[in-house]
């Protein structure tokens, strides 16, 4: 699957709900769930930056590479 998004793991650790994170990051709930479900084709640096800022983590905590 290549790049895997571990956003829900980090969110569970930080005990933050989807709606709350979406509001703080400034994206819609629908877009956040697209991201969480690995359906997104790309992520903007600005979005990644905002998520990392809110969750106080590094991009590597959210994104993971897995060889086929």
């Amino acid at each position, binding site marked *: 699957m290549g790049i895997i998004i571990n956003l829900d793991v980090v969110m569970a650790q930080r005990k933050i709900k989807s709606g709350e994170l979406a509001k703080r990051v400034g994206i819609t709930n629908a877009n956040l769930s697209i991201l969480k479900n690995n359906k997104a*084709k790309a992520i903007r640096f600005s979005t990644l930056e905002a998520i990392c800022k809110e969750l106080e983590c590094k991009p590597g905590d959210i994104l993971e590479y897995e060889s086929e």
Partner: protein
Amino acid sequence: MKIISKRGMSGLTELLVTLVFIGGILIWLSLPWSLPIAIKYLKTDYINNSYFFSFIIIFLYITGALSLIVVYQIRKFFNSINNNTPFIRQNERALKIIGYACFAISVCFFIKDIFYPTILTIIVTMIFIIAGFFGIVLGEIFQQAVDVKKENDMTI
């Protein structure tokens, strides 16, 4: 005046196209009655030709139907622009239908030009050939735009 808005230029265009569509249907349906009246005011030598009336009425029924298809598709196209969703597959199809319909109209006009040539219809033939190419090329461009838009929508 705003260009892309329901109350702006594109909204006005949609209204005009709707009026043209309704008027076009009325004229198309009333051809057997309206054509003799129109021909009375035509200053052309072809009136003396006995096949002229039957040829022209069949010609106008075919090209009229095709033109109504074109106008209907343009209306749909502008409707989607006014709803702020112009980059959809439906518009790509609409533009290609417009293109092929324009080609069909130009073929009809070409046949008319063979039997009853006038300068005006030769010009119309050329315009519809260009409009046909334009519609098909624009449809292809729209296909690319739809793909880019989809890619952009999936970028979070």
